[in-house]
């Protein structure tokens, strides 16, 4: 096994981003219904297991590289992709199940979080 690196993790996330991913992120209104449908949240009652929260690193990557507004933010130095790692390194991001349809994506975001330098 090669060593995990930030670059590798970001690349893995970047490869996953396409039209559907962009449409889903653009349509998310933070209603919390994905958590109420997720066994990790329903079993623990821990908000950090919310599926969309686990995808936050991927959402930020999409925002800063695939949206006009995000690129402006990045240019102004207002993007927080790295900073998230500190906030999140202790979060529920590692908890996912490969039985869930979202696992393919959630798993990668989880791996990214653990490889981000603090």
């Amino acid at each position, binding site marked *: 096994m090669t060593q995990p690196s930030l670059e590798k993790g970001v690349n893995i996330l970047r490869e996953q981003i396409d039209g559907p991913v962009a449409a889903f992120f*653009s349509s998310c209104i933070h209603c919390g219904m994905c958590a109420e449908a997720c066994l990790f949240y329903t079993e623990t009652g821990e*908000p950090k297991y*919310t599926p969309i929260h686990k995808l936050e690193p991927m959402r930020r990557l999409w925002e800063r590289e695939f949206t006009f507004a995000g690129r402006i933010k990045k240019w102004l130095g207002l993007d927080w992709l790295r900073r998230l790692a500190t906030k999140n390194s202790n979060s529920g991001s590692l908890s996912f199940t490969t039985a869930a349809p979202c696992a393919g994506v959630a798993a990668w975001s989880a791996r990214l979080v653990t490889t981000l330098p603090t």
Partner: protein
Amino acid sequence: MSGAEFLLWMRGPGISFAALFFIAGVVLRLIEILMLGRTKNLAELRGSGSTAGMRTIATRFLPADANTFRRSTPTIVLGYLFHIGLFVVIFLLTPHIKLFQSVFHIGWPGLPTPVVDFFTVVALVSMLGLLWRRVSNRLLRFLSTGEDYLSWAVTFMPLLTGYLSYHHLLLPYSWMLGIHILSVALLLVIFPFTKLMHSFTLFIARYYNGAIAGEKGVQQ
């Protein structure tokens, strides 16, 4: 500046600039999403993606299945009430239809104003309920960002100021109506770069969601 002057400026250049910004922003955001296309699906197709996609666009307007409804009752009930109220207020109030008619040259019949007034109250109260949930529920408070509260505020203000101007409350009518249009201008400017974009992107998201499932032969 008098109330009449303020109103005149808002209904003229003010709202026009906001509307142009809104259209440009929404088009930009939609192009950004659609240009990405889809990553190549290497699996054998087990059904028509486009048929399932179109069907999902329609079926997701209806209430969710019983399990989902039981899990997320307040979100679903308040969400429907708010959106129905907002739809009626925007598209079925006669002065609003007159505005659409002057811009797009198509009109449709409106509802009696007292009925729209009732729906305004429904939308306002359900929005307050949703905000209350956002701040009091541990999960929602955790998920919420500044953008969520900003989106709430810029949606709430046009409803509130519209209600106040119709009932001639608080301020002279021309001032209140001017502020109402100002609040709509603010909504339009903020719209393309916040989650308010879901009003447009939900159709793309539903299509892709249905299409991805349909290609896998998932029964929906």
